């Protein structure tokens, strides 16, 4: 091997190669090690540029551990699928890894779990797409995982697992990424509901049925009908049940504890959405059976889109939730026809109940 005649390692890649050789003879001849050897000067120059010109420090040892432990399986998978694309994939992943490590998204001391999980588990499963467009696929999936990790109601681990299955059916990188959006909604990113439904309607039917197989639909029409149902049919639809009714979701919280509200919020209906307001800002509430999310937004035009409940609505909601309207603890309530939101005077939470018109 060329490394044997090289002087003692003084650059990141030579250090990586040395570490790799020490770790295992197999690794030294692995596709990753070969690719690093192939682009040794270029990789070292990129590292130098990143750490010196851009002044974003990256520890070379920590970086080499990341390359060996997080990228090895992926590069093996790409090599098995298309050996000619290995060097290009490694180049892009090297660059992405530098960006991520200097910003603290990966590495021994990173507080993020998902990027490494994506590197080790999801990206190897997407090898055919990585071979086609590594920057787009890896960048998008890592960004998505980070976005989900920062959303309290999202379930990113479930998303990674289901994306691995989606990768076996998707035909193109775009198909895979569309599936990623649709599945992110199914895994708790409730604010993507309308966009995800649109994607489910337009993506190839075999892919749609595969990624949403839990809905048990046999064709697209059936699938769309089931997906568009906001809440699981059941007890919540029985309007005679009053005292035993439990919230389908509880969202929000005090800013001091990482929540969005600085004061107990007031909820209201703004056009078709449920919205909330504290002393400072306005928020939109997104909720369905897959998750519930509250997102800050620009203040609406002064009460422009606010829908005030009519007498019939008040009567109906009061019949199901006697304490919701005018109760001593209730601060506000709003109903959009499928979801009832209630806030209390002493709480920073928003309590959501499934409530459909009878």
């Amino acid at each position, binding site marked *: 091997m060329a490394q044997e005649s090289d002087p003692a390692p003084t650059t990141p890649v030579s250090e990586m190669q040395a570490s790799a050789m020490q770790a295992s003879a197999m690794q030294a001849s692995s596709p990753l090690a070969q690719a690093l050897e192939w682009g040794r000067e270029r990789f070292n120059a990129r590292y130098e540029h990143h750490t010196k010109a851009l*002044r974003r420090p990256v520890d070379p040892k920590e970086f080499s551990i990341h390359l060996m432990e997080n990228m090895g399986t992926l590069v093996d998978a790409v090599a098995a699928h298309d050996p000619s694309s290995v060097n290009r994939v490694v180049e892009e992943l090297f660059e*992405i890894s530098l*960006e991520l490590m200097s910003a603290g998204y990966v590495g021994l001391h990173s507080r993020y779990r998902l990027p490494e999980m994506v590197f080790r588990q999801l990206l190897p499963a997407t090898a055919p797409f990585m071979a086609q467009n590594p920057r787009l696929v890896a960048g998008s999936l890592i960004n998505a995982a980070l976005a989900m990790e920062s959303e309290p109601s999202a379930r990113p681990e479930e998303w990674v697992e289901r994306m691995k299955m989606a990768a076996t059916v998707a035909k193109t990188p775009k198909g895979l990424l569309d599936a990623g959006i649709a599945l992110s909604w199914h895994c708790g990113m409730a604010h993507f509901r309308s966009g995800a439904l649109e994607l489910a309607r337009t993506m190839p039917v075999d892919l749609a049925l595969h990624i949403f197989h839990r809905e048990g639909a046999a064709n697209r029409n059936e699938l769309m009908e089931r997906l568009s149902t906001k809440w699981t049919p059941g007890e919540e639809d029985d309007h005679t049940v009053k005292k035993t009714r439990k919230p389908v979701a509880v969202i929000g919280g005090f800013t001091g504890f990482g929540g969005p509200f600085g004061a107990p919020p007031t909820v209201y209906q703004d056009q078709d959405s449920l919205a909330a307001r504290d002393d400072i800002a306005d928020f939109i509430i997104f909720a369905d059976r897959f998750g519930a999310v509250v997102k800050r*937004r620009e203040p609406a035009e002064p009460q422009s889109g606010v829908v005030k409940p009519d007498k019939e609505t008040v009567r109906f909601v009061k019949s199901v939730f006697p304490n919701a309207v005018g109760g001593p603890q209730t601060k506000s309530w709003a109903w959009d026809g499928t979801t009832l939101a209630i806030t209390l005077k002493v709480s920073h939470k928003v309590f959501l109940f499934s409530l459909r018109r009878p």
Partner: protein
Amino acid sequence: MSILDRFRKVSESPTKPGETPTQNKFDVADLYLGPVDTGQPSQAPAAGLDEKLRQAYFWIVNHGIISPFYDIEYNDGPPQTFVFGDLKANVTLPSDQSYSSYVLLPLLNLAAKRRCLLVGGPGRGKTAIAMIMGVLAGYPLKEVKRAIQHGQPQMTVTDLLGNPLPSTMVSAKSMDEVVIAWRKWLGMRVKIIDEYNRIPTRTQSALLTTMGDNYAELYDQIFECPEAAWYLTANDDAGGGTYQVIEALRDRIDVVVKALHFNTRFLSELLLRVEEGIRPEEIVPPSIIFTDSELDALGSRILQVEMAPELIRRLEFFASHFEFFEPAARQIEYMTKDTAKLASVELATLEAQATGKDKVADLGGQTLNGVSVRALMTAIIFIKAMAFFRGASRASFEDARQMIPFVLHDKLTPNLNSPYFETGSNSALRVDRVSWIRALFDDSCKEYDRLDLDRDDAVANVESVFEKGLDGVTEKEVKAQLVQIERTLGKWSKSRKLYGHMFDDILKLKYLHQRYSNYLKWLQWNR
């Protein structure tokens, strides 16, 4: 902390407390936005680009360019105002975050990739701020310096654009075969032309093509330039310099910023820099340098800022004052200042005809020209950019009020013979264009409010019905609309003098009348 570290310090987030980047729409594509560049044009990092832009701004004003001027004023409550001197100069202490136009406008120009002219006397930091913009765009300082085009009387087209390779000049059998060594600056995303008014006229024409149409042409060869932010500097804005700047080139400039004087109270700051050998462009902190994808994303994020219909209506009303010139024609469509200009007739010659209008109150009388479509488009972009910079997803009235003077600075030519400039303390507005245009906008808004157009806009009422479409509209409904238009015009013809804002309204009503009349004829034929 060393002196150098102090100069490199970037303001901590949030630079605008209480304003977090917000969205009204949730786009599924946002799932894939994050710290990793995916190579897609619309890619934007999760961290707010508006925040990064503000951090860049505050670094420049705090450590880069000494510009302690807050002439772009925002208030979120009643500001304190003090009056000084016999001429009653107002000094306002803004109650909300306010900005220095000399730093802010070049930065917005970088974000929106437009063309900015920096004017002011020598040694006021015009070239320095342009260089900082180059560094913020990710170029090494050496490259930025080498790429500056210094205007001088001997500058040729080839000096500006590039040279044909001599070997190919000899061997080429056709122009296509001549290979051009294009100048490197053409491919950069920040372009700096120093003292552009010293460039000979012929070379200015070549510059015009590059600036206006984003390509360079030499020996039938074309070089397509990337979208770029342009910075031009000039010591004299009033047409001085070695060569007269061609009008088309001036027209391509989107925004004009004045380099203000050096505040002598900051001499000690200057002394520190001299003693420590600190040059701001050499110590730009890496954390405020934008990547190519961030610059692309900035442009698209700015365009996503919403403009409320009420604000658009006020802009329409403002712009409508200026083109109208009643004495220029007998047919209403030609009653414009352009008609007089094309005939090479001075407006003053025609103005002698009495129209019965109050020449002080008539805003159109204060200018020699109207507002072009290009200027309006530029105004919209800078208004959006201003709103984006402040972390808002919707442009405010104040954003428009603050940006319009800088965009129309060289676009609206004052009619210095207007009696408006003789009244009160308005004579200063003959030279202070920023204040003059802002006063024009304020007066236009006062007139808009006086006419109560937010609630009672006859044209908007007819237009809103028309915008629902003509499909399925009955003959009776069409006739009702025609009567409505005729009544409005009848009412106006009896009760009002003809002002600029009515000119566009009348033409719009005439247009709608024609559309309805044609449709009515078709309905009657199809009966």
